[in-house]
């Protein structure tokens, strides 16, 4: 490639604007400017130099900050759109999304649903936006960091006068004793922690160069973060399951390949009580009503011992007891179990009494476990009850026949056959909550409702996320990079002796106010004036 050799002898890569070594202007266009464009030190960036092949064009597209900003703004706008109505994952599961949005929000909701905005953050175009930002981050950074590193690494102390006088802070002064003045300035610069290099009596004081790498460090952090986000889609990296477990019940923890089991010993729901809790809360409790204090599942965790063949009851070994609360998940082997939901007082058992309708005399009680109903009950003395059908979540279907909506006993109903000495063939009775039907004519006996037993059900989210450490690493690197770039500045001061005069020039990548104040205090009492701001000279301070 045709490299550019500067008059000072340094060989620069093709496309360099300012000589990496002496700062002489290599691009004629720059010569007419009052001030140099110091971004990236006038180094040769690939995107500014090549534009021939398709790869050049793609590279140039994504390396542009303008494109990057557009991608950010588009993502920002799209993200805002997604908050106008709740996303699908937050709508109550009362009806399908296709009906819910129109039902709740009218034509706006319908449109929202049809545009796919109800599930926007997972849509292909939103993901493409995020991915483009990722690509832009990589290319932008590579395009700039390599040449910038070269330029800062090879910079020489003596800079060309055309470079010095086109710096924003610049001054020329006459002095009687240049060496003494310089010595004073050097001491003061050292006190301000500048690194000082000297060459032929010229001086370069520099500090905070590492802050120039801040943007690239934070971009690397972001890239790692996004890669971590993508890894979620790799099988085995991410588990998101829900475990509903009743009090007293032991269930296998989903996603653990049958390795772990959990028993719900007790579910506890506490609310704030004006009697027992701090009285400063009284006013708030009076205004709001009830405020929940605690959701808690007292759980015991078991691990399966040895191998079992399917269908065989596993032998369980207790690992630990744990009170799972919101903010206090149970953690085991990369998994975490979180308290997320509950159902209070789910019907668990129903109690009935076989009763003579006329005499009201009872001939025995039966208890039906709604999850594992026993079908025959022998009450002795010739009294016998058979459960012919069981509908846990009863309703009548379109043809008027009883059916069940689900296996959850939300509305249990039974068909009983009551065998008594009077009716040895039995009498059939259909019993649901608050409802009894005798389909085969009047019966002598009935199954009288005798109470229920309920249990709480606790819902735990089972989560495994092996991407977390990558995401944390990305986040940490991002923070380091942002702080590095934001809280430090790269400041440089050049001093050059030319024909009995002293030329001074200062540059910072940001916070000019800070540099000016620092230089004022450095030059104070040295006999030399601090370099002046060529940009705001004409404006009043």
């Amino acid at each position, binding site marked *: 490639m045709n490299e550019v050799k500067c008059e000072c002898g340094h060989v620069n890569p093709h496309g360099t604007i300012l000589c990496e070594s002496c700062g002489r202007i290599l691009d004629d266009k720059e010569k007419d400017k009052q001030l140099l464009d110091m971004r990236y030190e006038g180094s040769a960036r690939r995107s500014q130099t090549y534009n021939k092949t398709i790869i050049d064009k793609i590279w140039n597209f994504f390396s542009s*900050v303008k494109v*990057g*900003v557009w991608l*950010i*703004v588009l*993502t*920002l706008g799209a*993200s*805002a759109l*997604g*908050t*106008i109505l*709740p*996303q699908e*994952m*937050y709508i109550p599961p009362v009806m399908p999304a296709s009906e819910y949005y129109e039902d*709740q*929000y*009218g034509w706006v909701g319908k449109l929202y649903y049809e545009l796919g905005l109800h599930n926007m953050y997972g849509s292909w175009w939103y993901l493409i936006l995020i991915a483009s930002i990722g690509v832009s981050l990589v290319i932008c950074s590579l395009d700039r960091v390599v040449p910038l590193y070269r330029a800062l690494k090879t910079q020489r102390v003596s800079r060309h006068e055309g470079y010095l006088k086109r710096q924003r802070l610049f001054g020329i002064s006459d002095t009687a004793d240049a060496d003494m003045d310089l010595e004073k300035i050097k001491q003061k610069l050292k006190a301000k922690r500048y690194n000082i290099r000297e060459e032929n009596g010229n001086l370069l004081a520099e500090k905070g160069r590492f802050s120039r790498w801040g943007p690239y460090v934070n971009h690397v952090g972001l890239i790692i973060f996004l890669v971590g986000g993508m890894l979620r889609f790799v099988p085995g990296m991410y588990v998101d399951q829900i475990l509903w477990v009743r009090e007293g019940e032991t269930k296998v923890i989903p996603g653990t390949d049958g390795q772990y089991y959990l028993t719900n010993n007790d579910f506890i729901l506490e609310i*704030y009580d004006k009697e027992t809790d*701090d009285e*400063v*809360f009284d*006013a*708030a*409790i009076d*205004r*709001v009503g009830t*405020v*929940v*204090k*605690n*959701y808690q599942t007292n759980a015991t965790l078991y691990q399966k011992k040895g191998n079992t063949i399917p269908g065989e009851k596993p032998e369980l070994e207790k690992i630990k007891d744990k009170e799972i*609360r*919101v*903010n206090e*998940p149970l953690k085991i082997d990369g998994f*975490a179990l*979180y*308290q*997320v939901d509950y159902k209070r007082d789910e019907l668990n058992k129903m109690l009935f009494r076989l009763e003579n309708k006329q005499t009201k005399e009872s001939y025995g009680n039966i208890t039906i476990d709604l999850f594992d109903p026993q079908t025959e009950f022998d009450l002795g003395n010739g009294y016998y009850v058979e459960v012919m059908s069981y509908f846990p979540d009863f309703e009548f279907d379109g043809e008027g026949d009883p059916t069940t909506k689900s296996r959850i006993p939300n509305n249990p109903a039974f068909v009983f056959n009551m065998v008594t000495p009077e009716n040895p063939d039995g009498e059939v009775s259909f019993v649901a909550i608050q409802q009894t039907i005798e389909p085969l004519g009047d019966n002598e006996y009935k199954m009288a409702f005798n109470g229920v037993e309920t249990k709480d059900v606790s819902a735990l*989210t089972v*989560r495994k*996320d092996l991407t*977390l450490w990558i*995401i944390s690493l990305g*986040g940490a690197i991002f*923070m380091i990079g*942002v*702080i590095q770039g*934001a*809280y430090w500045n790269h400041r440089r001061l050049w001093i050059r002796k030319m024909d009995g005069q002293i030329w001074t020039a200062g540059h910072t990548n*940001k*916070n*000019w*106010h800070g540099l000016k104040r620092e230089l004022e205090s450095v030059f104070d009492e040295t006999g030399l004036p601090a370099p002046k701001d060529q*940009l*705001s000279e004409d*404006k*009043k301070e």
Partner: protein
Amino acid sequence: MAQLSSNLLYTAFVLYLVSIVFFSGAIKAKSADGTKIAPSRSAKIGILITIIGFIAQVGYFITRWIAAGHAPVSNLFEFTTFFGMALVGAFIVIYFIYQTPLLGLFTLPIAVLIIAYASMFPREISPLIPALQSDWLHIHVTTAALGQAVLSISFAAALIYLVKVIDQTKSDKKTFWLEVIMYTLISTLGFIIVSTAFSMANYESTFNYIDKNNAEDQIEFAMPAIVGPNEGELQSEGSFQPLIEMPAIINAKKLNTLIWSLGSGLLLYGLLRLIFRKRVSAMLQPLVKNISADLVDEISYRSVLIGFPIFTLGALIFAMIWAQIAWTRFWGWDPKEVWALITFLFYAAFLHLRLSKGWHGERSAWLAVIGFAIMMFNLIAVNLVIAGLHSYAGS
């Protein structure tokens, strides 16, 4: 303790108001001699009173923390008050870097407005719901608020810049939008005045209405209902009959409050225009005559540079860590999360435009204004209108 706490907050509020007076004195003193940066006596008193006020407010914060047993950042009143306090704190720091009393004249009124706005919401000490019972409550919320406060300083500086550089001799888009900013600030004042007035008069009107799920419900309006709820029937005697009835999907109470705020803001703004016969920004322009436009531009930019990392740490990183613990996932596209992301993206774009595209001065100032608008949207609209998992913050 709780009583002491609210007295301290009240003290801080009054002291901030007093310091505004001194800071405005400092401007006049400066224009008189017109020269160098040495802070005038008035400015020194101003910053001293501000610092005392700040200490009083820190006292409020600590005593309320002790009284409640948790960091007082758990509802809209507490969060917004803390945000106001962080804004004053950030101003004090920036003041000592740049020695500009004028910044106080613009920042403190905003802080006072914010604190007054906060106290329009229920102020009782409320117990923590399970999701909030975590040390991350104060770690996440205070850092996020501090980041937002520093970013808001950028808005105050940008406002000074715009008031200074925008040509008030003609009427164009720029003067219009600057007046919109002024009108919005005045409307906030309107909201505070109207709410306080009706609450002192114990105004209350109750409606029976039909909500959007077709269920009967009851709602209490604290201001006369200009717009009433769906099929609302006024229950209180002697109350104002609504002029218009809203469909069930619209929250008539919130809309009504908005109408009152904007209406009273319009009245105040109109009065100002009538009395002074010029734009509000034109009225303010003489105050900013002597400040260097470059300096306020620099302050605005520095604030973004200082605030952006703090905001990212508090509102995104700490937020994600806590969300992983409390809500089982570090990110869930909850509206508040999304708006924090939007704020982050916006300021990221701001920094890129400034660093690489050379957007300085006026363009940068307009961006700082938009950034503040986004943060206020997140504070107000997302809590009160959009809601979501963070909705415990509203009421």
